[in-house]
């Protein structure tokens, strides 16, 4: 028989009383939601002669500040050693994939952007690459749209890594790091707001291109960001890189080597932290990544500290890519250089413009469909309400998201809606590895193990 403690605000185990201490089906249950462990220890000592008190089952989560969102970890403890760890997920399942089957291919973007909410541009891009591959129009996506996608993805990568590093610090007790990192993320979100109109849930990348071109002043804002960011990154590194407390909590902690990564399907900074330079931007380029000059940072320590170093180094590389992309966008621009595919059967005809009541269809376009051309009105109506048809088939596309390989398996039955859109989210796959990393270690090391995976529950549960 095992003794259970339903602590840290988590739900009581099966058969346990809803509140207070009492007998459950699996053993004696102690409720310490307030965190008064002295009473538990005393009660355990009192009852030591009657029960097996060797093992303690603790529910960490689903509402716990250091489990990255609504993740529940069921820990079996022997003293302070974790003998068994079982992650429980599903608390943030929203049925995004199912909902997408009832909307048009274009509307799908507004759903999948909400999955991994720290990397929305990646979700949008991988989905749009899948739709374009199904349509067979990859070659017709305008160059400028691809450059914009790359630039936005790399900005997003830095924002995501800033959250990963910041919350990592916060969970180990370093609030300064969190504030510094989140401040930089805010600046990127400001850029996103300037370019897409929204701080998250952008729906910026659309099948065939992107929703709109850069607004005035966007390139200057990006330049300003590029100017200050290296200094900010150096400042962040000076707080973390050689901090003895941070090193003690992360070095040789949450070990997972290359064989483990392969078996568990782990990709991203965790895989590159084992020394394998596997990055889809290099190995299977998309959106023209082969034309940018950047490196794939690796570490060979296989531990939480190595993953942190990979992430900060990736931020430096992302800055290089953003600089090259913004140079291309700023260069001399040919006449009629669109950001959306020219095929009028796929790209929405409306040009967006900022009016008195916010962003919407441009007055020129409204005047054209309402006053001049009946056919244009019909076409607009059909394309927006019915959507375009996609030939029968299935494709799988993958991009390198901040957390690893983000894949999209899209199936079409020839209709105007996705028959099935499945996202192979790296958080979901990588989170399986937390047991391999933390079992046999101390309970305190569970926190850096989860944080070094950087799971985003929106992506895990979708």
């Amino acid at each position: 028989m095992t003794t259970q403690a339903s602590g840290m605000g988590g739900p009581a185990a099966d058969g346990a009383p809803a509140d207070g201490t009492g007998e459950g089906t699996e053993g004696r249950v102690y409720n310490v939601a307030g965190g008064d462990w002295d009473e538990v220890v005393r009660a355990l000592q009192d009852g030591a002669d009657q029960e097996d008190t060797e093992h303690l089952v603790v529910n960490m989560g689903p509402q716990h500040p250091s489990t990255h969102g609504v993740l529940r970890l069921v820990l079996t403890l022997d003293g302070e050693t974790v003998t068994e760890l079982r992650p429980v997920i599903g608390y943030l399942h929203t049925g995004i994939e199912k909902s997408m089957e009832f909307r048009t291919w274009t509307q799908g973007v507004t759903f999948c952007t909400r999955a991994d909410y720290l990397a929305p541009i990646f979700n949008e891009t991988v989905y749009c690459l899948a739709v374009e591959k199904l349509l067979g129009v990859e070659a017709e996506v305008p160059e400028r749209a691809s450059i914009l996608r790359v630039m936005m993805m790399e900005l997003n990568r830095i924002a995501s890594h800033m959250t990963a590093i910041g919350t990592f610090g916060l969970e180990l007790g370093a609030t300064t790091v969190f504030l510094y990192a989140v401040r930089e993320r805010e600046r990127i979100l400001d850029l996103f707001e300037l370019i897409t109109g929204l701080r998250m849930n952008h729906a910026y990348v659309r099948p065939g291109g992107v929703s709109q071109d850069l607004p005035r002043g966007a390139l200057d804002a990006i330049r300003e960001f590029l100017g200050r960011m290296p200094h900010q990154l150096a400042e962040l590194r000076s707080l973390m890189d050689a901090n003895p407390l941070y090193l003690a909590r992360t070095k040789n902690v949450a070990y997972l080597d290359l064989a483990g990564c392969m078996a568990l399907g782990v990709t991203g900074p965790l895989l590159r932290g084992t020394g394998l330079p596997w990055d889809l931007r290099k190995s299977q380029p998309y959106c023209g990544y082969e034309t940018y000059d950047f490196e794939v940072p690796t570490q060979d320590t296989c531990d939480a500290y190595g993953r942190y170093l990979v992430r900060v180094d990736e931020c430096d590389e992302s800055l290089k890519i953003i600089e090259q992309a913004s140079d291309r966008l700023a260069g001399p621009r040919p006449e009629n250089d669109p950001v959306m595919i020219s095929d009028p059967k796929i790209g929405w005809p409306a040009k967006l413009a900022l009016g008195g009541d916010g962003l919407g269809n441009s007055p020129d376009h409204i005047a054209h469909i309402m006053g001049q051309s009946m056919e244009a009105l019909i076409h607009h109506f059909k394309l927006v309400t019915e959507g375009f048809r996609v030939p029968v088939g299935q494709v799988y596309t993958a991009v390198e998201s901040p957390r690893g390989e983000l894949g999209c398996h899209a199936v079409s039955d020839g209709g105007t809606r996705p028959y099935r859109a499945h996202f192979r989210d790296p958080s979901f796959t990588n989170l399986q590895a937390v047991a391999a990393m933390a079992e046999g270690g101390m309970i305190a090391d569970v926190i850096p193990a989860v944080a070094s995976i950087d799971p985003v529950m929106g992506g895990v549960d979708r």
Partner: protein
Amino acid sequence: MSEKTPPNEPEPDEAALAGRERLNEQVVRTGMFGTQTTGDTSGYGGLQVRRAPPPFTPRPYGSYFDEVADALTARLEADGGGFDEAVERVIVDRGELTLHVRREHLVAVARLLRDEPPLAFELCGGVSGVHYLADVGRELHAVYHLVSITHNRRLRLEVSVPDADPHVPSVVSVYPTCNWHERETWDFFGIVFDGHPALTRIEMPDDWKGHPQRKDYPLGGIPVEYRGATVPPPDERRSYT
């Protein structure tokens, strides 16, 4: 269609043969929009759309696909089997190779794909289920996306099983990463992965009834009222497929 072809008529070409083959398939849709409640005013009310026969790609497949197929054939034959015995059909579409594997051979094929140096598909991207409601007798598909880091290649395995017997052998023994993916596919589609260490629901609550991503499971939703007009829930809106 007459049984005998007159001698002066030219040999039917590939497209004509494919068309004739399709006439033997079942009807999947009638009319232009598949409307049931109101009349079809499109003028195509008598249209009958038949299911396309399952496609397959003949050799050569192109790209690295022939090399993969050759290496797999050689290894399967060395083990006393054959390529055609394990793989129902091969589809090359949009630059992607799909092997439709018979379920009883799935684990053996996956193991060869992972272990044999000329194949070396070390990484599995997990399982994705698809419910083809109209594909009678093989409604549920489990789709595996494999990556070879050694050769920088991709490959898709697909297993189809009937709804009445939704059993697929688990590949967790070959690719441990499929553990959660198979649980997810069981949860959403009801495909039973035999040999999985703990096949339980993962996203839905443990006591949930049904498998929500199946096509016969309703989306649900409530009508939305806006300025006196009512917008029906998404699954009751007109569909154009």
